[in-house]
């Protein structure tokens, strides 16, 4: 068997909110430099899975977890491991664009400043780099000091991607990043995702099957908290193994 490198592995992960079991014994991995799509009808636990990977669920007092999540071989829930360091290494883009109510520039500089970058030239360079990577630079380079909420929805979401990239994380989590955008902006961001996988491990949550097929290399189908199928996107598209997967991709459930 060929050795494949992956930043993130999940072993026998189950999670609860209170007494409600959300994820059921999930085992999978996310390959480097590729896009892994997590599909499933809404409410099946896609966001919960994503938020378990950067420990954002820790904020919910009733959250409980069993099983192991490895980031570069290290258990991220091991007592004493730094959640802040982890979140710096695993970027996240949310369902609705959520730029901070401050200037475009300040949005990008927020993360690097938190983590100790002080030099103005370096910060300027980070701003330019991140915006270029998010394919937004040409559109906003003259408006860096304008408030970010004044940008269009699609631009805001790309700004959020740029903001996530500003601290240079190897992994990018994206929770239905285009579901609130118009088709044109959504198309731009899909292109961007494909572009970004050259340098990042991308985990893309979506309930849109076509989108998953368009951009992902591997796909996981989650149903009622269970990982029903996990395979290369091509195989799932052509010949799903499980009938629930087939039902979902043909639009009969979800």
């Amino acid at each position, binding site marked *: 068997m060929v050795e494949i490198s992956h930043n993130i592995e999940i072993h026998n992960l189950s999670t609860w909110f209170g007494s409600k079991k959300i994820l059921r014994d999930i085992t999978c991995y996310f390959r480097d430099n590729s896009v892994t799509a997590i599909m499933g009808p809404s409410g099946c636990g896609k966001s919960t899975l994503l938020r378990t990977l*950067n420990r*954002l669920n820790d*904020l919910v007092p009733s959250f409980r977890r069993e099983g192991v999540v490895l980031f570069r071989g290290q258990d991220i829930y091991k007592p004493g491991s730094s959640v*802040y*360091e*982890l*979140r*710096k290494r695993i*970027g*996240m883009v*949310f369902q*609705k664009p*959520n730029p*901070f*109510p*401050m*200037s475009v520039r300040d949005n990008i500089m*927020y*993360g690097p400043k*938190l*983590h100790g970058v002080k030099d103005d030239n370096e910060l300027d360079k980070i701003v330019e780099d991140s915006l270029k990577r998010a394919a937004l630079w040409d559109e906003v380079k003259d408006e860096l000091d*304008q*408030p*970010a*909420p*004044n940008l269009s929805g699609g631009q805001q979401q790309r700004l*959020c991607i740029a*903001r*996530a990239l*500003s*601290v240079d994380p190897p992994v990018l989590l994206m929770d239905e990043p285009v579901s609130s955008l118009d088709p044109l902006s959504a198309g731009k961001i899909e292109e961007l995702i494909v572009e970004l996988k050259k340098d990042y491990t991308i985990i893309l949550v979506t309930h849109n099957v076509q989108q998953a097929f368009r951009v992902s290399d591997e796909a996981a189908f989650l149903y009622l908290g269970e990982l029903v199928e996990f395979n290369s996107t091509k195989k799932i598209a052509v010949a799903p193994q499980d009938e629930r997967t087939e039902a979902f991709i043909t639009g009969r459930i979800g």
Partner: protein
Amino acid sequence: MSDSSETPNVAEASGEAQEGIDTGSPLAGFANRLLKPLRDFVKADTPGRIDKAGKAALILPTMASTLIIILILGFLWYEATPIFLDPSGGPGIIVSPTWDPNRNLYGIAIFIVGSFLCTGIAIGIAVPLGVSGAIFLSEFCPMRLRTLIKMIMEMMAAIPSIVYGLWAYVVMVPYIRNVMAPELQSNLLTSWMPWFQGSTNGLSLLAGGLILAIMLLPTVVTITSDALLTVPRTLREASLALGATQSETARKIVLSAALPGVGAAIVLSLGRAVGETMAILMVTGNSLQIPYTLFDTTYVMTSIITNQLGYAFVFPLWRSALFAVALILLIISICFTVVAKLFIRWGMKTRGYI
């Protein structure tokens, strides 16, 4: 046909007329800016010509409150005119520090200074404390405790100021005299500081500032925490997902996002602080001097009016001088409000809220 061709003509004509006025003189331009929204409002649904009564019902309260402010200003101005016109008075009273009605000296500078210092101390204490408290409440405090604390805060805000005054007179003033002053004046760290010098009987600038701070605190805490709670959760999550701690998120994102609301909290407390009368009157000692240390007695604008209006009523100049104090008080609080509004607007602009 004739209808549809006429309407744009009218609009054009009035547009031209407005431009004509605009370029004419800046004053007319200003008047035009004031009147334009009114005109637009009246014209808003011209085609249908419905709902005149509803419109009147909307516009009357707005007009009425503006009118009331103008009337009060006019009334105070009218009452204060004698002192401003009299040779022994004049606008100079604003900077003159001697208040002695027996000698026809009506300098009101000490009251202005007293009010500013008391307000400054109170705001200086209440705002940082109240804002930190609000951050604790909205970001770190469990829901149950938050509800309880907010309830207590709201009750505190409803306590009449005379009650605060009585408490301060009986508890705080002796505490300042017997504990605080000796303590601060004897220890090496603070004893040399100029603002802690002087003997005191407890009735002091400090007492006034402190009791005012205590009275402002609930307002600052409740309004600020409400403002913080309206900041969407997704902004907090975005910050945390970048590796920020909860405290960094609270300070750099939540507080910054809610700054216009916090500004509003500060305006309200400023207004209350300069206008507060009863509690201040009871604990500041009310002697006619400019305070040089925190332990000096002081006299604020509201106190002089309350204390002397009864005697002054039959002496036109004296009485008029007191109205001048009130006029300046009102102008100061209007200025506070305007500055704060400008600040809030600026905050909303730079944050992309408007």
